[in-house]
């Protein structure tokens, strides 16, 4: 449909030119008026002035170039946009059907009306989640995988699309559960000013159709867990958990934190009318590494969604400094040289207590003349015990200092993830009264009752296990062959079946094997070591050139790091490409092996935690440099463990790393429909708000203004220049003739 439109235009009109013309006309008029003779009558003056102004006006028109423009106009087809929510919250099952299914049904029921609208205006189909995407009409409502609901971004994109003005209406079909800019506090009464401004600027009405409002929505969800990506071992970590409840009224529920199926802490949260409450969970990690944690709330009757009742995340637990408690029964060279190793390690926070005066010593002076301090047994082995990464008893007999009362706590501390090392001497092991004590239960050896210390030179022999163990494997060769003999040893009664002997006596035997000089053991979640000599200082302080103190320092440094499970001491390590994955994302597991040869085929298993149910497995082929990468498709949402398994070699070192697959927790954190928000959008734009089942698309308001566009235009100058100039000359000549006739110059 076409129409013609004609209008006056000025070809040369521009701001500066217009200003210059106005100035010229004003100046010319003022000069003309001033130039008229004083004795001239008013009538004559008006006549002359008129002629001069006409001349000036003609000059001005000459400059501006007036013209007539003829435009051919074509009416534009108006458009109506149907915009459907495609976020994951549309998967929520409300009363038997998902929200997305209800949209599909509604659009199918409204197909006749959509046809009519399409015929009259043209129909545009969009879906939105994080952003607006144009889709075919048949795809509407079929997808609901978007990770966020972002209404503002979708409406901004619609505003840009309607820039040429052919959009006459938008029908927005959504649950309104915005999880982006409008997730908090955006109701009809308090829309954010910038969002309200955006809505007011739209040239078309948005009618909103709410999904999921036909039945009461009941859900309890963990909306958010604020946690850091890393934390320090043995330091309290605090998590802030936001819990949201819909349709549940006031209630108190427990919020718990778990790791690998083990409950770490629980707190109660009290939900009031607002439906949102925050809870703080505090725990103290006791091990270094990457760990998957789960925050959980109970599943209540009638909940629309149960996946959002737990949230998994991975935190890297790192060590600030190794905190070591070093208790020494008597100053000795063994303690002196070990202290030097500790002092030189910048990553070590050493707390030492040496018994400088036993209960039977008599210094002969008062306490005020001594530098001795009380041995804070209760503090060290009571409240402070769990702050230490490792406890070392060096030639320390517990009995005179009432430490015996705390031996069960020390044993529990080790089983719970701590580390303990006993170093020999005439006050240690059996000689120190540890036989049949709780400490014996965590040591790698069983003890004689009574003195087991022998002052005899003995050269330590590296065992088969010691050759490839990270404590005694210094990278090639057997350094212990070159080291001086030890001065003494404590003779164990038996080696615990769970222990590994790294260094042994060359000929002294207990049971079927050699008497251990250095033995280690895993105890529960912790580790223990027995160094059955007080003579390792001889490895440090020795004659001759060569490696000097390096073997001694490496031995003790390796020992400490093994005890505290330093990840750097692992002979095999796994590393995930990232800690969190989305559904279907590629999960890359990088494997690195050092020091030891893994025998037999290996594989990486993906295990769902807790429970360690295997969900995937792949064999591993190591490259020459000892590395390999294995890839999996991310399984369903939840916490998992990637675990290296060496088939046929149970003694091979293992490694495992946790990761989390997020299944749309952001959307399910606040899944309740937001009809108030949708109603506010409709009101601000002149649209209509209705529940999905109650609406009829054909009845929704459109913008009635006719949209058209210029198809073609022609411009014809209003005055031909020659005629224009002749008229100007005629006017000037007339003015001159009249003035002369009236007797003026």
């Amino acid at each position, binding site marked *: 449909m076409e129409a013609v439109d004609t209008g006056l235009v000025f070809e040369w009109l521009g701001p500066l030119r217009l200003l210059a013309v106005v100035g010229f006309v004003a100046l010319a008029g003022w000069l003309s008026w001033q130039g008229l003779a004083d004795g001239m009558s008013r009538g004559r003056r008006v006549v002359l002035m008129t002629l001069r102004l006409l001349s000036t006006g003609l000059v001005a028109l000459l400059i501006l170039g007036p013209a007539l423009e003829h435009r051919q106009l074509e009416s534009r087809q108006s458009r109506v946009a149907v915009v459907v929510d495609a976020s994951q919250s549309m998967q929520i099952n409300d009363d038997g059907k998902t929200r997305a299914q209800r949209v599909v049904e509604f659009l199918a029921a409204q197909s006749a009306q959509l046809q009519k609208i399409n015929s009259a205006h043209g129909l545009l189909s969009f879906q939105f989640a994080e952003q607006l995407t144009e889709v075919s009409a048949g795809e509407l409502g079929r997808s609901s995988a978007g990770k966020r609901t972002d209404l503002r971004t979708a409406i901004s994109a619609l505003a840009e699309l309607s820039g040429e003005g052919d959009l006459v209406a938008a029908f927005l079909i959504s649950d309104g559960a915005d999880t982006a800019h409008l997730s908090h506090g955006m109701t009809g009464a308090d829309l954010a000013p910038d969002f309200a401004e955006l809505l007011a600027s739209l040239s078309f009405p948005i009618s909103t159709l709410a999904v999921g409002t036909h039945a009461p929505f009941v859900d309890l969800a963990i909306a958010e867990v604020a946690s850091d990506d890393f934390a320090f071992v043995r330091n309290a970590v605090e998590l802030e958990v936001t819990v949201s409840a819909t349709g549940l009224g006031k209630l108190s529920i427990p919020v718990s934190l778990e790791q690998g199926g083990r409950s770490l802490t629980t707190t109660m949260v009290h939900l009031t009318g607002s439906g949102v409450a925050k809870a703080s969970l505090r725990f103290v990690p006791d091990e270094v590494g990457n760990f998957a944690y789960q925050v959980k709330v109970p599943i209540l009757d009638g909940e629309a969604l149960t996946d959002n009742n737990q949230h998994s995340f991975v935190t890297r637990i790192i060590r600030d400094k190794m905190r070591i408690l070093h208790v020494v029964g008597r100053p000795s060279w*063994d303690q002196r040289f070990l*202290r030097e190793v500790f002092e030189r390690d910048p990553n070590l926070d050493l*707390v030492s207590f040496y018994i400088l005066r036993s209960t039977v010593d008599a210094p002969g*002076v008062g306490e005020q*003349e001594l*530098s001795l301090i009380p041995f804070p047994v209760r503090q060290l082995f009571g409240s402070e015990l769990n702050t230490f990464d490792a406890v070392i008893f060096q030639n320390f007999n517990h009995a005179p200092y009432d430490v015996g009362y705390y031996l069960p706590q020390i044993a529990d501390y080790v089983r719970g993830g701590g580390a303990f090392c006993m170093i020999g001497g005439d*006050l240690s092991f059996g000689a120190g009264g540890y036989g049949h004590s709780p400490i014996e239960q965590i040591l790698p050896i069983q003890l004689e009752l009574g003195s087991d210390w022998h002052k005899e030179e003995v050269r330590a022999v590296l065992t088969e296990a010691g050759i490839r163990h990270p404590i005694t494997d210094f990278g090639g060769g057997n350094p212990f062959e070159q080291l001086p003999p030890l001065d*003494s040893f404590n003779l164990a009664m038996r080696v615990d079946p769970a222990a590994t002997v790294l260094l042994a006596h060359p000929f002294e035997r207990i049971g079927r094997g050699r008497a251990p000089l250095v033995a280690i053991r895993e105890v529960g979640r912790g580790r223990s070591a027995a160094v059955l000599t*007080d003579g390792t200082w001889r490895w440090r302080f020795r*004659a001759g050139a060569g490696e000097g103190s390096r073997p001694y320092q490496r031995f003790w440094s390796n020992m400490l790091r093994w005890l505290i499970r330093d990840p750097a001491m692992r002979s095999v390590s796994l590393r995930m490409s990232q800690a969190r994955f989305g559904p279907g994302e590629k999960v890359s597991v990088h494997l690195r092996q050092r020091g030891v040869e893994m025998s037999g085929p290996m594989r990486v298993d993906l295990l769902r935690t807790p429970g360690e149910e295997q969900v995937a497995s792949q064999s591993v082929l190591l490259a020459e440099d000892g590395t390999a990468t294995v890839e999996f498709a991310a399984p369903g949402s939840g916490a998992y463990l990637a675990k290296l398994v060496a088939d046929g070699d149970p003694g091979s070192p293992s490694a495992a790393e946790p990761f989390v697959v997020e299944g749309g927790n952001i959307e399910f954190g606040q899944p309740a429909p937001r009809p108030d928000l949708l109603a506010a959008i409709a009101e601000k734009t002149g649209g209509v708000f209705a529940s999905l089942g109650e609406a009829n698309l054909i009845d929704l308001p459109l913008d009635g203004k006719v949209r058209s566009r210029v198809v073609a235009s022609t411009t014809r100058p209003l005055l031909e220049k020659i005629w224009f100039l002749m008229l100007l000359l005629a006017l000037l000549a007339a003015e001159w003739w009249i003035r002369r006739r009236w007797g003026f110059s």
Partner: protein
Amino acid sequence: MICSGNWLSITDKSPVNTESLAPSALGSIGKDTRLRLWWACVFLLIFCADAAGQAPFAANQQLQVGWLPCAQAQSPRSGGVRQLAWELVKRTSVEAQMEPVEVDPASPDLFRTPFLIWSCAGPVAELSETALSNLHRFLILGGFLLADDPEASPGSDFDKSFRHILAKLLPGQKLRRLTPDHVLFRTFFLIRQSAGRVSRSDLLGVEIADRLAVLYSGNDLLGALSKDHFGNWEHACEPGGELQREASFRLGINIVFYSLCLGYKNDAVHLPFILRRRRL
């Protein structure tokens, strides 16, 4: 050997002594028999003690002092070392061998005794290149050398010869005065200054990697501790008398504790206690 290692504990320290065992364990035996057994035990202990005294090197948990050679005669201060060891055992938890052992600085056995004393009536012995190299390594690796001038006279033969050897041992290093805030003055006793048979000079020392490796006393510290075989003090302490002798024992014990514990008393946990007692 285990017996010799524990002899001092049994006689001087152990709360479980033979007297307390006698009534219960030996109650059913006749009086004469008990007396014979008693003497048998005493002889056994004396034998064990004698065996310990003759051992070339101490059991691990007994501090053994090494004695460096002199140019002319045996050092006159071995009695001071014996008395210091006796006081250490009596007053502290440290177990010490009574007799110092003479060590050859050129021998690998030097490294069995990380605590060395050099104190000569005349000049110290000249050292071979091997001995110098060995002693240098000894100090670098963590050994401790106490030099004590029996003449207590600056410019004495011992003083000159020791400084000459020290310049060869640790070139570029000089003896420096220990300030009163040095940890050595609070390793066991809280003391404020140097002491010895005389009280003329401060303690001097050479540090290696923030650790005192060489300590020089110009006050004849061991002379103040020396007793003759009748139990009499060999030398009078001047000008402070017996108080000065007690100060010398405390300094000697502190020196031993420094060599064993290094900066232990600089640990933060000790400082509030030490500062409070210093103020008293």
